[in-house]
């Protein structure tokens, strides 16, 4: 083994661009990336380490911004546009492929890579078959350390549910669901405006990214989600085993 050029923390935002996101919600979604870039620019410790990628999905999924350094002056932040249904399966399949590609590329370029984190924002129920998206999610997240089977580069998944996203479905996407590195989901409180909730999710995303720098300085090696009592108003946080409905 040689040596690494730097150690990186990859983050992905995977965002629902079904037609129901049109209007105010779309505007709120489009504001996420510039706000994140501004926040990262303010924190040199995390700014040196973070790589961010943006993927959207509707009937299909696409990489809008390949994993990159948001502070690179040559980067142009893409605009989001709504375009169809809500295929979770397409999103998960693309992420499986994309993460593998990105991690292998970074390692080939002599970077040390921490486990990726994936924020998954949806405003509705999946339009594909239950079995279809569940098996795609399994392929993205399943890994058996003992036998080495599955996807060793599996991401930590943090679901963000707004508007008509089904909390039970979102809850089943929390990964890891248990253990010392268990993740949580964030869902919009009933009666809140989706655009307001999306702005709250952006805040949570940004503080998670920034906290992960502090986390590395204080012992954890990846994403550090905000404490439930420090959430912006109108959203709540739940673990995979919480019976909150």
């Amino acid at each position, binding site marked *: 083994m040689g*040596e690494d*050029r*730097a150690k990186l923390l990859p983050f992905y935002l995977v965002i629902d661009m079904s037609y129901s996101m049109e209007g105010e919600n779309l505007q709120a979604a489009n504001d996420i990336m510039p706000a994140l870039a501004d926040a990262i620019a303010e924190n040199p*410790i995390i700014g*040196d380490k973070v790589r961010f990628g943006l993927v959207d999905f509707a009937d299909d999924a696409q990489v809008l911004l390949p994993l990159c350094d948001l502070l690179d002056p040559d980067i142009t932040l893409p605009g989001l546009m709504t375009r169809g249904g809500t295929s979770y399966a397409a999103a998960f399949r693309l992420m499986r492929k994309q993460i593998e590609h990105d991690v292998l590329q970074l390692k080939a370029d002599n970077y040390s890579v*921490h486990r990726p984190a994936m924020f998954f924002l949806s405003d509705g129920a999946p339009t594909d078959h239950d079995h279809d998206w569940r098996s795609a999610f399994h392929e993205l997240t399943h890994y058996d350390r003992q036998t080495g089977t599955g996807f060793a580069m599996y991401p930590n998944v943090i679901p963000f549910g707004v508007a008509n996203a089904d909390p039970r479905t979102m809850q089943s996407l929390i990964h890891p669901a248990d253990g010392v590195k268990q993740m949580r989901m964030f869902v919009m409180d009933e009666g809140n405006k989706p655009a307001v909730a999306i702005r709250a999710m952006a805040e949570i995303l940004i503080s998670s990214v920034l906290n992960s720098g502090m986390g590395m*300085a204080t*012992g954890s*090696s990846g994403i550090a989600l905000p404490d439930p009592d420090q959430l912006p108003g109108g959203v709540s946080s739940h673990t995979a085993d919480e019976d909150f409905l």
Partner: protein
Amino acid sequence: MSAPGGRHAAVERPERPPGRPVDIGDPGRAAATVVPRPDGRFPFHNDIVADAARVPGPAGGELHLLAASVRGLSHLYYGKVRQDAFGHLVTRDGRWLVAAVADGVSAGSHSHVAAEIVTRLGCRLLVEQLDDRPAAELDWRAVLDGVGGEIVRHARQRLGLVDSTLPDVAGRLAATALFAVVAVDPAETGDRPVHVMSLGDTSAWVLRPGAPPAWDPLQAVKNDGSVVASAATMALPGVPVELAPPVTTSLTPGEALVLMSDGVGDPLGGGTGEVGEYLAGAWREPPDPFTFIAQVGFRRRTYDDDRTVLAVWPVQ
């Protein structure tokens, strides 16, 4: 400011180039922009500590020792104390140099104290053992247990964790441990025996001369072959049931024994890249201590952990 010819005009200042940081590759944006913040909880714990000494042996041999521990960029930025430590001690008969490097586990608020206990008490326990037994027969488990016990005692008596379990204590203060026992005088062959014991990801290396010089690791290289990097490590006060045996090697003139925390070990990797090349060149011979501190604190993008190196060169 005084005008030319003012009252300071007569004072002659010797020209000395300003101290310059050492960059290896891209120093990163943080190196230029981080404002160092103090850790108000521990105002008397220094950011940078260093030692330089030539240790004489009873038979005329000598070891040149340099050590430096530097608070990392990340701890500077977040206003957290330096958690690495080093220590060294010579046996009463002068025949053995005992050296230690420890890295406090970041999650614990008092892990810098654990690192100091490991390096100070660990060296003392080793020196006591070497009073009446050969270095090859050291009871390493007794050393680790002794240090681990002191960390628990400190937590219970000084930090108010009265009825705390081992995991409670480890959550508050824990540190890796690396010890080396080096003969001060050479054997008849000209070599000096070295015994190394390591718990966690602090690492020991022999830097061997050659073209290019080689970094010879005395333990498995961290994260080598792993798909995604992990920060998990073993640390005292926990002593594993199965203890890896100590590593025995020897040091010849021209070589150096280098003990380091992962703040240096991680960017060094397997030692075959530009960090390895730079440090091997820098430490072919012992530099002056001020230069050594700057070298240990080299700047490299994203490598913002505390840095500690203790290096020993046999004197010809």
